[in-house]
């Protein structure tokens, strides 16, 4: 697998080959749902849609953790905000039915506001405190979602919100089958293509941000916050911006999730989700967009593959010793620990980040106390 990445890098050296590779990849992405229809079955198209959803989430968290170096353990809160916003404003729960094209930007905006509200008081804290506070915030949001069904029923409590409007553009509902160009597109196909488009936009935005003065400023803060501030970077605002951008990606994914599922409940927004997305970023390679995408693909697909372990155990031991579903989280935890100890830069790291996270290098390891510590 690693040599495959290396191969891809060398492929990019030659412009003509690179174009061919890109076009092939594009065609593959377009054909993928039908390919999996024919081979693995319809259920895998749904999994592919989830892969794309998690790619978006992971890229959002990557801005916060990978670019700016801030450990956010409550990222799922923004996902929840986007999902519930969509659910409440496009369902019979309040009888409000706003259209998709209003809700998606609104979700991004509201999640962004939440990001700023959470970030403003906490971003001056040191990294490990920030991790805990965001973790707490993620839990608070979930507790509120769970309990805000009384005395006024805002969230419908643990039952969640049902019958959410499907995503539709005018009369074109994604939750219906459509025959186009002589091909039958099932709802799950429609959603796959919608998610693909939005994921590509998010990838594009991520790249553009990374390779701009903003991306450089984030990298500088990650490297040495004191030096960054002394060089004229408003570290607080830049960190807030990272938080807000990450949050808005989360909000968008949340809205898409709600429309796709037609149902949201607090259960979908536990700490575990935050950890899973973090895991994708860490596994793939913090700060490196292609790596993070690969991380997301692997970690959505792998648990699905784990399902086959059940029958395997059955045939080997004549009984199922460990429920494969129970192995999923264990796997995520192990990924985090093993990656940090043996390959902290991820399986497909960015060329610079790889060197940075390796423990035994020189100036990168000097104490990076925050500017504000120095003030106290």
């Amino acid at each position: 697998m690693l040599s495959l990445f290396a191969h891809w890098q060398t492929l990019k050296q030659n412009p003509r080959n690179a174009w061919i590779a890109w076009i092939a990849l594009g065609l593959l992405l377009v054909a993928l749902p039908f390919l999996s229809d024919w081979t693995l079955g319809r259920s895998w198209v749904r999994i592919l849609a989830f892969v794309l959803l998690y790619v978006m989430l992971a890229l959002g968290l990557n801005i916060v953790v990978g670019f700016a170096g801030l450990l956010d353990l409550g990222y799922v809160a923004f996902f929840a905000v986007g999902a519930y916003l969509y659910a409440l404003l496009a369902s019979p729960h309040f009888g409000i039915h706003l259209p998709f094209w209003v809700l998606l930007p609104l979700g991004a905006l509201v999640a962004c506001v939440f990001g700023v509200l959470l970030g403003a008081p906490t971003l001056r804290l040191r990294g490990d405190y920030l991790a805990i506070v965001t973790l707490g915030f993620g839990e608070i949001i979930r507790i509120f979602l769970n309990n805000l069904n009384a005395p006024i029923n805002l969230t419908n409590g643990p039952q969640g919100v049902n019958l959410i409007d499907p995503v539709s553009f005018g009369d074109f509902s994604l939750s219906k089958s459509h025959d186009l160009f002589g091909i039958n597109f099932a709802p799950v196909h429609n959603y796959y293509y919608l998610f693909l488009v939005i994921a590509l936009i998010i990838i594009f935005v991520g790249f553009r941000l990374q390779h701009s003065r903003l991306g450089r400023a984030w990298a500088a803060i990650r490297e040495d916050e004191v030096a960054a501030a002394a060089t004229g970077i408003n570290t607080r605002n830049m960190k807030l911006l990272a938080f807000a951008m990450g949050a808005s990606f989360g909000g968008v994914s949340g809205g898409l999730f709600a429309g796709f599922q037609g149902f949201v409940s607090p259960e979908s927004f536990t700490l575990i989700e935050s950890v899973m997305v973090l895991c994708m970023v860490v596994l793939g390679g913090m700060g490196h967009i292609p790596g993070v995408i690969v991380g997301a693909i692997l970690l959505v697909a792998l648990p699905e593959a784990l399902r086959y372990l059940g029958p395997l155990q059955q045939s080997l031991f004549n009984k199922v010793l460990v429920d494969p579903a129970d192995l999923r989280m264990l796997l995520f935890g192990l990924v985090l620990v093993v990656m940090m100890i043996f390959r902290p830069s991820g399986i497909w790291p960015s060329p610079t980040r790889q060197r940075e996270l390796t423990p035994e290098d020189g100036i990168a390891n000097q104490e990076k106390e925050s500017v504000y510590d120095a003030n106290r």
Partner: protein
Amino acid sequence: MDIFLQQIINGLVLGSIYALVALGYSMVYGILGLINFAHGEVVMIGAMIALAMLQALASSSMPIAVIILLSLLVAALVCMALGYAMEKVCYRPLRNAPRLAPLITAIGLSIVLQNIAMIAWGRQFVAFPLQIHATQHAIAGASISDLQILIILVATASAVALLLLVHKTRLGRAMRATAQDHRIAGLMGVNVNTIISVAFVLGSALAAAAGIMIAAYYGLAHYSMGALLGLKAFTAAVLGGIGNLGGAVVGGLLLGLIESLGAGYIGALTGGFLGSHYQDIFAFFVLILVLIFRPSGLLGERVAERA
């Protein structure tokens, strides 16, 4: 009257458990500058092991007191071994890595432990078979049970023992020196690695005690009980001033009181809008407020910077 006093008693009981766990966080943080996220899981493992021992020995002919002591001992030993192994395998290789690395490892570790426990003991709540005949004593309109008294006594004794160890013994002096500066302590002949291991082992022993107490108190244990408890204990440690052992005790007791009084009165305070099921969010609000307004905590001098 009574409700107030009753909440104070409940708060102190809960608080003394938080204090024990908070001591572990604070000790490790003081020496390594690391938030050991997985510490809460050690508490859970302690409770689970004790429970498994009690169940296994229940049918034996040993006297009940021996069974209990044996279970406690085994739970404490397993937790100490776990603490030692965690540090040695997961944290030591990352001692010079950027801060993000051990933090992420700690989270991973916490998830691994939780899920191992889930696979071993199942997803359901497990009833804690420790039968303590909880005689209620009435004090001024409120009541306190034997078990509650026992918890407060054991917690106090453990905390005092730890404080004496750290402040009065040669080992404690080495620990304090290491907390100040690893390199200099090393130059003065302190074996820094040993001291760090000791901090993890001691913290884990206290965590085991806390785990057993909380499981006995609620009569239940669950694979996920450590996460929230850990977070609250961490809050307690920050509230008291992380790195400061006395602070951890004060913070723990205070947080227990805040939670218990808060849960008792939140309904009245918000006009019935929020009920006692919001009990768990008090800790977070306390944490956020402390971190924003007084990050060094109540008793903290300056937050000890990692050397």
